[in-house]
């Protein structure tokens, strides 16, 4: 099968072209580095099936980070390369184009963002460009689909060419200068309102208040949408579901089936949070408590991503992040990790050095709760007052900063400075926002529900066999002695390896005081990531670095848990 690889600079719309060609849904955003791994899809060209590979963005074939290494590897497999070029920045994009042509592989150029180039006064004589480069050049607007058909039609025109002797970079730039001078005309334009907003959001005097406002507004939106959905959609649905599941429990009667599917009855009734049955807690926790916040978080995140605000936030945060051993771009894994730690861990690829990736991934695993866990923390501690939630968040924030400062000091290796292109502000497309939110929510449902079912099943089995009592006694000196928690909390802490949201829910029946709950959820966040994040981190960091990272997590949990016990509960 013919393999077609999409290559191009970061943030030129490769993933959108990929979606147009294959119909497959991939997440694209308005910031460089939103694709860190390759995606595959299929399409038919004149009756023949072809495989399309969406490679991460790269400025040249000389890779400078892990995502660019992936792009260079993917290129080796290509039978045909679609070079996606940003028409608003032709000159810079042509360097990769010349490198691709040098490889001898058949190349077609998709001159994307054509509409924006025209609007901003950039005229490109694309037939002349085609003549200069000797490869087909097709203007496209991937977002609307304009030009995609012609791109597909002209893929047959190209054929392999002999591998060219690579010319030095300086000669390439001279040629690029010559080509752009011939084919491109740039008209003067006055600054627009969009330019003024962009300036205001990167200048420190105005940018910092804007950033605080945006973050506050984002979390306020998440909370309001989440609570509204729970109140008006999910709680009524689960209210309607309750009689049916109660009748089912009565029909089963006392026994193992009722224990596993319905769970324990609390005061003779089903309690969706505490019963721990597959059909009760197993459905209510992911759907009734977590899903509304997941939907609202990803909706808000998608707007932030597509508007182009995240790179500006990275610029403003760079001074802080640089002291933590990363650079401002470290805020992207942090933001994505607040939805789910897995994409957050993958996003660390955009950081250039091993040291930066190690610190970013370790801090993510230690101090960044995913939205599912955060929703449960709100659910568990919310009834006692917002001050308890604030204690957890503030502790995790301090841990993030303190651990970052320590790691920046002691982890060996280089920590490069930020060098980031800031994309123009764009109005988020409602259809794309809805699509991205749905894709991420679907990913959450596909991952959360099986793990929750497995976790609940495991808890019931271990409970029935007496293993939980045994393990509780084994770790009692740690949980009771160091953290001031009941020994039964050990089970919840261990279950956190499977699903953190379930583990937080398991703390409720233990009847702990609010301050004990604060300690328990904080330690639960810090001590170890969930199994899905762990698997990704092993792949990203390697087993040795992951071992070091794990040791740091456990050590931090012990120190923070003990410290909180002394401060909050007294010695």
């Amino acid at each position, binding site marked *: 099968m013919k393999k077609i690889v999409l290559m191009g600079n970061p943030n030129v719309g490769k993933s959108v072209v990929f979606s147009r060609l294959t119909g497959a849904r991939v997440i694209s955003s308005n910031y460089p580095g939103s694709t860190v791994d390759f995606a595959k899809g299929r399409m038919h060209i004149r009756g023949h099936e072809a495989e399309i590979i969406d490679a991460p963005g790269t*400025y*040249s074939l*000389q890779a*400078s980070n892990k995502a660019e290494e992936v792009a260079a590897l993917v290129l080796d497999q290509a039978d045909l390369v679609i070079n996606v070029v940003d028409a*608003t*920045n032709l*000159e*810079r994009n042509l*360097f990769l184009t010349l490198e691709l042509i040098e490889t001898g592989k058949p190349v077609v150029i998709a001159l994307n963002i054509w509409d924006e180039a025209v609007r*901003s006064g950039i005229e490109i004589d694309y037939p002349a460009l085609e003549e200069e480069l000797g490869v087909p050049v097709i203007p496209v607007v991937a977002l609307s689909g304009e030009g995609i058909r012609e791109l597909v039609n002209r893929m047959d025109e190209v054929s392999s060419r002999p591998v060219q002797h690579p010319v030095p*970079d*300086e000669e390439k*730039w*001279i040629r*690029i*200068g*010559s080509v*752009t*001078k011939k084919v*491109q*005309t*740039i008209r003067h334009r006055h600054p627009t309102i969009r330019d003024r907003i*962009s*300036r205001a959001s*990167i*200048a*420190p005097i105005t*940018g910092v208040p804007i950033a605080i406002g945006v973050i506050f507004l984002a979390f306020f939106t998440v909370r309001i949408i989440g609570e509204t959905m729970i109140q008006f959609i999910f709680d009524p649905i689960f209210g309607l579901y309750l009689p049916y599941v109660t009748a089912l429990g009565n029909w089963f009667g006392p026994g193992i089936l009722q224990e596993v599917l319905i769970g324990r009855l609390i005061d003779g009734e089903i309690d969706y949070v505490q019963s721990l049955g597959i059909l009760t807690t197993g459905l209510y926790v992911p759907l009734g408590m977590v899903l509304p916040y997941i939907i609202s978080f990803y909706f808000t995140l998608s707007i932030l991503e597509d508007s182009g605000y995240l*790179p500006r936030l*990275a*610029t*403003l945060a*760079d*001074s802080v992040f*640089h002291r933590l051993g990363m*650079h*401002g771009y470290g805020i992207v894994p942090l933001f994505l990790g607040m939805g789910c730690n897995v994409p957050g861990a993958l996003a660390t690829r955009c950081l250039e050095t091993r040291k930066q990736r190690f610190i970013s991934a370790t801090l993510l695993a230690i101090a960044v709760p995913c939205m599912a866990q955060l929703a449960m923390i709100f659910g568990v501690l919310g009834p006692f007052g917002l001050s308890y939630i604030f204690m957890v968040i503030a502790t995790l924030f301090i841990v993030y900063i303190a651990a970052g400062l320590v790691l920046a000091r002691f982890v060996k290796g280089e920590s*490069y*400075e*930020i*060098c*980031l*292109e*800031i994309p123009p502000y764009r109005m988020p497309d409602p259809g794309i926002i809805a699509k991205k939110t749905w894709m991420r929510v679907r990913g959450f449902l596909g991952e959360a529900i099986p793990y929750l079912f497995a976790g609940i099943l495991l808890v019931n089995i271990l409970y029935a066999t007496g293993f939980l009592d045994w393990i509780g006694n084994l770790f009692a000196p740690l949980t009771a002695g160091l953290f001031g928690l009941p020994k039964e909390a050990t089970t919840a802490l261990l279950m956190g390896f499977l699903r953190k949201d379930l583990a937080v829910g398991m703390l409720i029946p233990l009847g702990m005081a609010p301050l004990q709950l604060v300690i328990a959820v904080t330690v639960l966040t810090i001590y170890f990531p969930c199994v899905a994040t762990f698997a990704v981190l092993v792949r990203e960091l390697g087993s040795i670095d992951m071992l070091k990272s794990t040791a740091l997590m456990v050590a931090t949990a012990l120190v923070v848990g003990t410290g909180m016990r002394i401060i909050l509960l007294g010695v």
Partner: protein
Amino acid sequence: MIASNPECGGPSIRTTSPPVNTSSPHTSQRDTRKTTAGGLFVMHNNHCAGVRYFRARHPEDRETADKHGLNPFKSGVSILYPGHGFLGIPKYLYPAYQYLGKPKFVMPMEVPLTSLAIDQAAIVRHFIGGQHFQHKLRMMGMREGKVVKLLASQPLMGPIVIEIDRRELTIGRRMAKHIIVETA
């Protein structure tokens, strides 16, 4: 690279910049031009990039320049005061300052990118750093001959934001210090 500079009195002037992409529409013209403020400075193609010889930290270069009669009070050279209010001296006093006597040193016309004032434009001249550093910058669109404008400078030694080819670029401060630009 050593190049002779006939217009500046003939001293050999070292030019370290790689060839400039003169054919780009974004690239400034590098033809002969003269400043009007002092009426003395001459730049011809790339040769007079060597005016930074007058920097105080290169006394040997300064001696060479003096030897060849290249000083601020002879035709061919001017004092260039980059930015606004160098050493707090108001701009309108610059001409008077020139005639008070031979200046202690002549401000270099080539300065690090970090020395620009907000909204000040300059031309990228060369980079001080290894191949990887230079390659990375060029890939991001930062190349010799390009006009850059400083848009913002973050506090606490944070990065700077520049505009280049209608694009905004965030660059770490240490990196920016290694990008030498020519103020105009």
